[in-house]
C-alpha cells in the first residue's frame, strides 16, 4: 500500500504498531514530489537528504509526540535555521535565517519531518505572479486552474499527496481560500492562539498561522502541537489549550449554529457587482451542507450582521496600511526587487492617511462587538467560502484582491477561529464553506467540521494526480 494515501491519524497508528517506518513514509513522499511537482510547482526547495536523516533519527525510537514520523511542508515565509527562506521574493532570494519559526520548533518537537519549503505568493500577497523567481503552484484538480493563495504551495502539496500536512498563513483568507479551491481542510486559529514568531509578516494585527490538512482530525492533531502561549510573540495569548481530538464527535445534538446567508446571497452582488454572484451549484452545495448539519442534530438559525463590505474593506484597509509600513523603505529604494502584483497591490497603501487607518480600526472594534453579540447563545457560525470553483490561473487580475467579494476576511478582522471544509464539487473542482467560532474555541469549530465530514465523503475524494504512483498501490 502507498503510505502517502494515509491521513496523519492513520499513518501515526501504522508507525506506532510498527507496520510503517518514518523512513518509508518520508521516502514515499519524496518520490511523489520528484515525480509530480514538475507539473504542480508546490515546492521551492526540497530537503531530501535532511528529511531522510530526520526520519532515520526517529526510526525505532519511542514516540516523540503527536506527529512522530509525519512528513510536512512549510510555506516559504516560515523561517528555518540554516535553510533558505525567500518569502517568494527576489528581495530575500538568498536569505538564510539563523533562527526557526516557533511553529516549526513545536512541530519538530512533536516528531514532524520537514520535506521542504513551499511556494507562496510574494510576502503572502503578490500572486499568482509569473514574474517571480518561482513559478506559481497549479491546482491539482486541474492544473490550468488557480489553487488560490497565498498559501498556494502548501495547499497544493497537501491535496496532491506531496506532504501529509503543512503550515500556511492567513491575513484575509490565505489558508482558507487555498483549502477551498484545493478540496482540503484549512484552519485559521484565533488571533493569539498560534505563534507568528519567525514568520514574515504581512499585517501585524491580521496575520494568523495555521495548518492545512486532508481531514479535520488531522487538523486537530496539528493543533495539538501548534497551539499555546509564546511569550516572545507580542500578540500571543496565554489561554489553556484543550485536547482537540477529544472534542471530535459524530453528532451535533444540542449545538446551535448561526448561518450568515446574506454575505453571499445579497451583499456580494450589491457591493461588487454580478461577477461576484455565487454559482447555482455553490448555493445548492451550501444549502445541502446546512441540511446535513441539521440532520446531525444541530439547530440552525439565520444571523444578520453588517454588510459584507463593511468587514472586507476595514480588513483590506488595515492590511494595506500595515503592509505598506513594513515595505515602505524597500518600495522607495529598491522597487525592482518586487514582483508586479506585490508592488501594485501594497503600494496602494502609500495613499492612505493616518486617519483612514484609525477609522478602519474604530470600525473593526464595532464589528468585533457585533460579531461577539451575534454569537451569544450560538456555538458556531457557518458562512460561505469562495462561492464558485477555482478560475483559470491566467485569469487573475492584478487587483483581484480588491475587486471581488471574499468571505474569509471578516474573521481576520474579528480574530475568530475559522475552518474551511469541503462541501461539494462543480465542474470537477472543489467547493467549501466556513465554520467560525468564539475566541479560542477551535475545538467547537473542529467538532462541527469533523461531524460534517463523518456524514459526507467530500474530504475522501482526491484529485486524480493524488493517486498512488505506478507500482505503489
Amino acid at each position, binding site marked *: 500500500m502507498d503510505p502517502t494515501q494515509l491521513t496523519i491519524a492513520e499513518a501515526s497508528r501504522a508507525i506506532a504498531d510498527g507496520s510503517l517506518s518514518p523512513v518509508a513514509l518520508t521516502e514515499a513522499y519524496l518520490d511523489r514530489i520528484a515525480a509530480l511537482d514538475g507539473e504542480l510547482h508546490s515546492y521551492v526547495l526540497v530537503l531530501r537528504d535532511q528529511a531522510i536523516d530526520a526520519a532515520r533519527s526517529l526510526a525505532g525510537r519511542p514516540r516523540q509526540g503527536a506527529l512522530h514520523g509525519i512528513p510536512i511542508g512549510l510555506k516559504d515565509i516560515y523561517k528555518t535555521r540554516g535553510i533558505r527562506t525567500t518569502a517568494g521574493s527576489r528581495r530575500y532570494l538568498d536569505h538564510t535565517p539563523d533562527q526557526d519559526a516557533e511553529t516549526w520548533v513545536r512541530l519538530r518537537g512533536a516528531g514532524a519531518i520537514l520535506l521542504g519549503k513551499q511556494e507562496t505568493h510574494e510576502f503572502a500577497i503578490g500572486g499568482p505572479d509569473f514574474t517571480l523567481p518561482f513559478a506559481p503552484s497549479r491546482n491539482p484538480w486541474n492544473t490550468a486552474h488557480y489553487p488560490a493563495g497565498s498559501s498556494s504551495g502548501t495547499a497544493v502539496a497537501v491535496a496532491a499527496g506531496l506532504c501529509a500536512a503543512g503550515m500556511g498563513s492567513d491575513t484575509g483568507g490565505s489558508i482558507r481560500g487555498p483549502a477551498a479551491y484545493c478540496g482540503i481542510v484549512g484552519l485559521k486559529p484565533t488571533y493569539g492562539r498560534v505563534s507568528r514568531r519567525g514568520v514574515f509578516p504581512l499585517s501585524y494585527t491580521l496575520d494568523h498561522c495555521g495548518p492545512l490538512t486532508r481531514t479535520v482530525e488531522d487538523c486537530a492533531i496539528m493543533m495539538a502541537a501548534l497551539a499555546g502561549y509564546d511569550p516572545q510573540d507580542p500578540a500571543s495569548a496565554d489561554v489553556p489549550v484543550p485536547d482537540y481530538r477529544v472534542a471530535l464527535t459524530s453528532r451535533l445534538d444540542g449545538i446551535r449554529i448561526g448561518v450568515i446567508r446574506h454575505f453571499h446571497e445579497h451583499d456580494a452582488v450589491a457591493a461588487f457587482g454580478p461577477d461576484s454572484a455565487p454559482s447555482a451549484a455553490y448555493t445548492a452545495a451550501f444549502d445541502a451542507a446546512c441540511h446535513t448539519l441539521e440532520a446531525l442534530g444541530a439547530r440552525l438559525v439565520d444571523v444578520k450582521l453588517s454588510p459584507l463590505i463593511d468587514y472586507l474593506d476595514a480588513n483590506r484597509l488595515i492590511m494595506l496600511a500595515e503592509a505598506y509600513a513594513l515595505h515602505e523603505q524597500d518600495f522607495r529604494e529598491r522597487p525592482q526587487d518586487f514582483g508586479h502584483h506585490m508592488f501594485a497591490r501594497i*503600494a496602494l497603501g502609500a495613499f492612505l492617511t493616518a486617519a483612514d487607518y484609525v477609522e478602519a480600526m*474604530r470600525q473593526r472594534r464595532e464589528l468585533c462587538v457585533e460579531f461577539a453579540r451575534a454569537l451569544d447563545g450560538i456555538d458556531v457560525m457557518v458562512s460561505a467560502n469562495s462561492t464558485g470553483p477555482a478560475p483559470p490561473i491566467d485569469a487573475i487580475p492584478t487587483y483581484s484582491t480588491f475587486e471581488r467579494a471574499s468571505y474569509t476576511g471578516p474573521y481576520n478582522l474579528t480574530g475568530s477561529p475559522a475552518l474551511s471544509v469541503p462541501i461539494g464539487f462543480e465542474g470537477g473542482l472543489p467547493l467549501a464553506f466556513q465554520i467560525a467560532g468564539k475566541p479560542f474555541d477551535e475545538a467547537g469549530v473542529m467538532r462541527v467540521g469533523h461531524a460534517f465530514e463523518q456524514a459526507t465523503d467530500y474530504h475522501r475524494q482526491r484529485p486524480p494526480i493524488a493517486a498512488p504512483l505506478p507500482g505503489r498501490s
Partner: protein
Amino acid sequence: MADQTISSERFAVLVEQAGLKLTPEQFAELHDGYRFVQRMQRVVRRARDRAAEPAHIFVHPRAERP
C-alpha cells in the same frame, strides 16, 4: 464596485509625496487601483460617537499559573 475620481495630475502629487519612483506602467496601474483606496475610505469613514475607540488591544485573559 469602485469608480475612478482622481485626475492624473492630482495622483502624481500623491505619488511624489509618497516618495515613490514609478515607471509609466506602474503609474497607470496604481492610478487605476486608487479607486479601491477611495472605496475603502468611503466604507470606513462614517459618523461615530467620539467615545467609539479603535480596536487597539489584543490582550486575552491569562491562564492561572501554579
